[in-house]
C-alpha cells in the first residue's frame, strides 16, 4: 500500500517533469522535494552551517545536468534499483566545491577579507578540499547514520 502510494507520487512527478512546465520545474527545485528522498541529508543539513542555503545552491551542475540526473534518479528509485534511504550514494565533492568557491572565494571576499583568502589558499594548497575541514553542507555524524554508524 505504502509502496503503491510512492509509485503513484513518482509517476506524477515524472509526468510533471516530462511536461517541463514551470509548476513542475518549481516543484522539483524546492528543498522539500529533495528531502522526500534525502531525509538523512535533510536532517544533517538542518543541523549544518547553511540553514539559509538550499540544496540546489550547492548541488547543481547546471540546468540540463540537473534535469537529466533528476530523471535518472527517479527512474532508479521508481524501478527499485536504488534506495536513497539506505544505499551509499555517489558523491561528487569537486562539483559541490565549485559552488562553495562561488559563494565564498569571491571578489568581495578578496576585498573585505584578504587574510581569509590568503589563509585559505594555504589550506587548499595542502588539502585540496573544503570538506577536509568543513562539514558545512551536512553534519557528517548525522549524514553517516544512513550508511550504518560507519
Amino acid at each position, binding site marked *: 500500500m505504502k509502496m503503491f502510494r510512492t509509485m503513484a507520487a513518482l509517476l506524477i512527478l515524472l509526468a510533471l517533469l516530462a511536461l517541463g512546465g514551470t509548476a513542475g520545474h518549481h516543484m522539483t527545485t524546492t528543498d522539500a522535494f529533495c528531502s522526500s528522498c534525502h531525509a538523512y541529508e535533510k536532517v544533517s543539513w538542518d543541523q549544518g552551517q547553511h540553514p539559509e542555503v538550499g540544496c540546489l545552491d550547492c548541488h547543481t551542475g547546471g540546468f540540463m545536468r540537473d534535469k537529466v540526473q533528476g530523471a535518472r534518479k527517479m527512474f532508479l528509485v521508481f524501478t527499485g534499483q536504488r534506495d536513497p534511504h539506505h544505499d551509499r550514494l555517489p558523491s561528487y565533492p569537486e562539483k559541490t566545491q565549485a559552488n562553495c568557491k562561488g559563494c565564498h572565494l569571491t571578489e568581495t571576499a578578496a576585498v573585505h577579507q584578504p587574510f581569509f583568502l590568503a589563509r585559505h589558499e*594555504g589550506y587548499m594548497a595542502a588539502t585540496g578540499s573544503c570538506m577536509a575541514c568543513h*562539514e558545512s553542507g551536512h553534519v*557528517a555524524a548525522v549524514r553517516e547514520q544512513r550508511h550504518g554508524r560507519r
Partner: protein
Amino acid sequence: EDLDPGEGNAAFRHLPQYQSYLENRDDTRMTEFGGSVPHRKHDDFNPLPKGYKHAQPYLKNLWLGYPFMYHYDRARGHTFALRDVTHTDRVNRYDEHAGLPATCYNCKTNAMPQLLTRYGDDFWAMNFHRFRTVLDPDRHTIGCTNCHDPSDHMRLVITSVPLTEALERQGRDWRQASRDEMRTLVCAQCHVEYYFETGEHGVAAKPHLPWDEGMNPEDIYRFKSAGDPDRDGFSGQFRDWVHAVSKTPMLKAQHPEYEMFHDSVHAQAGVSCADCHMPRVRVGPATITSHHWTSPLKSEAMIRSACLGCHDQLTPAQLRERTEYNQARVWRQLNIAQEKSVRAHEAVRQAMEWPGVDQALLAQAREKVRKGQWFWDYVSAENSAGAHNPVKALDTLASSQQYSDEAVQLAIRATGHAIAESMDRPIGELVPPIREHSRKLQQDPAHLESHPWLGYLPLLPEAELIWDGNQRLR
C-alpha cells in the same frame, strides 16, 4: 652530519590540524589507568609525577641485564618523542658509543625518509649519537609527514619501511587499503611489536615486525622460537637479551597496541584507531580530525566525541566505568603474573646454584620462564591496560601465570625437590622489588650490593654524562 632534514612540522604550522597537534604538549593529566604524565612505570612508592598508584613494582627485576632496567616511563604525546628518546637512560649517554643503534629514531622522527635516502640500509646500525644534533626536537619529532603525503593533498600514506615490508610479506599493499584501514595502519607504523634483524642473516639493527605466523602472543612466540634466516633476519631462537640472574634467553615485547587490538570486538566491527583517538572536533567554523592523540577517557567531552557516535546506548560515565571495570581486572591479573614471573627467575637461580642440578630440566624451566614473561609483557607493554581487548588480555595473563608456575615446578624438579622449601616464601621476602637502578648507579659498587639480584650485574666503569638531549656536555 651533512644532512638537511628540512623544515619538518613547521612547514604545516598554518593548518588548523597543527594547532590541535600542539595539544600533545600537555603532559599533566592522568586517567585511572592511562594518561600522559611520564612517571616511572615501576614506581608505586612516589606520588606523581615521579610514580603512580598503578605501577608494576618488579619491572627492573624482570628486565635485569637489558637497557629497560635503567629507565622506562609512561608514554606521553607525539610532540615529546624526539625529546624523550634523546633523554632516556636506555641509550648510553656516558659513552661515545650509544649501545643502542640509530634505528631507534625510526618511530620518533618525521625525517626517516631523508635519513634512509642518505644512508640506505647502513643507517639502522649507525651510532645513535650521530643524529642527536641533526634532528630538532620540535621540527623533527613525529609529525605530519609520518602519515601524510603533502604533495598529494595530505593523503594518508605509510612511510614506515618495516610496516610496508611486513604487509608485503602478507601479500598486502597499503596503497590498495581502504580509507578506514588507513586510519588504523598509520598507527601500526609505530604502535606495534618489533625486533631488530641480526647482521648475520638480515640487515643489522633493522626493525622487523614478527607477524608471519599471526599476531597473537602464542603466534609471535612460535615465530621467535624458530627463525627462518631468509625471511626473518635471524636464525633459530631469537633472544633480545639473557636475563642477568636466571641466564634465560629472553624476549621483550614493545607496545603491541595494534596486535592486541587486531582481533578485538572493535576491530571486528571495523572501528579504527583514529575513530577513538582522533575524533572529529569543532574548531570555530571548521570541523577537523583531532590531532591530539591521547587517552580518550581524559574528559567527559572527549568520551563524548570519541565514543558516543557509536555508543548511543551508554552515557559517558558508563563508558568510563565499563572501561575501568575491564582495566581493573586486567591490572590485577597483570601484577600477579608479574610476581609469578619474578618467582620463576628466582627458582631457576636457586636451581642453578644447586650442585648436581639436572641441566635438561633446567633448560626446560628456562623455556617456561621465557614464555611466561613474554605472555606477561604482551599485556604489560601494551598501553591500554587491557582496554583494547580485555578478554584476550585476561586469557593471555592466565597463560603467563601458568607458564611461570610451570617454570618454578620444573626448576624445583631439576633439584630433586631440594629447593621446594626455600622457594616456599612470599615473593616480597623471596625477591624484593628493585626500586632504584640506572646507568649511573651501576657505576657504584655499594649500589650493586644493595639487592641480591643486582650483584649479578657487572660494575660499570665510572663515567660522566656526555649527552643530554641534543646537547653535548663534554
